[in-house]
């Protein structure tokens, strides 16, 4: 059975959704992700949905659910790379995903996770240009 790979990057987990999500795949992902968080003691989850072009209310709720589950397991969730069309669809569906944090891409997503966890010793977020 096909699965969505979950990559471990230090304290964070990276999930890249590159196939069209169907409902069973979404449930499988919830299962795998919660298991991984508790197994590795991860502090943050990045879900990259930049190649996701079609969403429905189920996928929207799945994202909200994953964020909720991760929070219970003491990990922050950041959804990154949402396409404009997907964002418009979710808004029109009335799903504003209030508990989910978002970022433009994986890079800013990791910055955001560091900010949230107070890890300021790493560079990136505090690079201020002097212009």
């Amino acid at each position: 059975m096909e699965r969505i790979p979950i990559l471990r990057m230090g304290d964070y987990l990276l999930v890249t959704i590159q196939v069209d999500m169907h409902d069973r795949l979404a449930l499988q992902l919830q299962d795998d992700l919660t298991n991984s968080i508790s197994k590795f003691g991860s502090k943050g989850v990045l879900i990259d949905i930049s190649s996701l072009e079609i969403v429905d209310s189920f996928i929207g709720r799945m994202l909200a659910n994953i964020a909720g589950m991760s929070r219970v397991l003491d990990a922050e969730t950041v959804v990154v790379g949402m396409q404009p069309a997907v964002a418009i669809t979710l808004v029109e569906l009335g799903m504003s995903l209030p508990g989910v944090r978002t970022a433009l891409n994986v890079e800013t997503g990791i910055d955001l996770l560091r900010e949230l966890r107070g890890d300021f010793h790493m560079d990136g977020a505090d690079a201020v240009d002097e212009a």
Partner: protein
Amino acid sequence: MLKMNDMLQQHEDQILSEWLREMAAATRRSDLMTDAELTTQAREFLRLLAAALRDGKANMSGNAWKAISEYISEISASRAKQGFSSSETAMFLLSLKKPMFAHLKEHAKNDPEGQFEQIWSTTELLDKLALQSTDAFLTSREQLIIRQQEEMMELSTPVVKLWDGVLALPVIGTLDSARTQVVMESLLQAIVATNSRVAIIDITGVPTVDTLVAQHLLKTITAARLMGAECIVSGVRPQIAQTIVHLGINLADVTTKATLADAFALALDRSGRKVVNTRKTPTSVFAKEE
């Protein structure tokens, strides 16, 4: 109908000149149309009317009637473009009544019953045609309005890059559903294209904010947030702030600023930048914020 046909054939020139005189007395706009042009139009109309009456089909159906209604639509539309008012356009046909009635009266002197019938059918016919002309006039006006709306829609939703990672969207005019769609799409596309984390929506040019406009605004803000960009609403005028509170619109989750400058300062702050005064003496307005 047949009598009208005979009459038109016999007295066409007379009717035409009387009609023109009638028009000159009622609503003649010589500033918008020359006499020659008007005469041509009137003559062409009488010719088509005579042809249609000869055709003799009832209920204004058939090719001859189609030709006349097309001709009326054409001249009414052109009058709308030339700047005539709708009543002036309708008067073109309605002022034909008087000369027609006068001639009908002459024709059926000894037949009061038939005279009345003739007058009734003539007035019915001319009224129908005048209504058609008003319809055509309004349609051409509406087309103009629709075209202007489309043009305004294209013109009025620019997305401006203020700084690296800071976008501004000055909204001019009322936000309805169709425009929100355009605004939302262009903003989200620009967020992706420029990789911006902050977008400032400036509503200085929005005349009124009601619940619907606020809802549309919130939709745009939510969509931008879903993509990972933060929105700041700026240009909230005092009256609009009052309306928002009176209507009970909840903007608690939205950062709002009075001016675009304030919003820009906040946006720079959020991205870890600040504007510094390079002069020794603190003359710049930015000095206050240091």
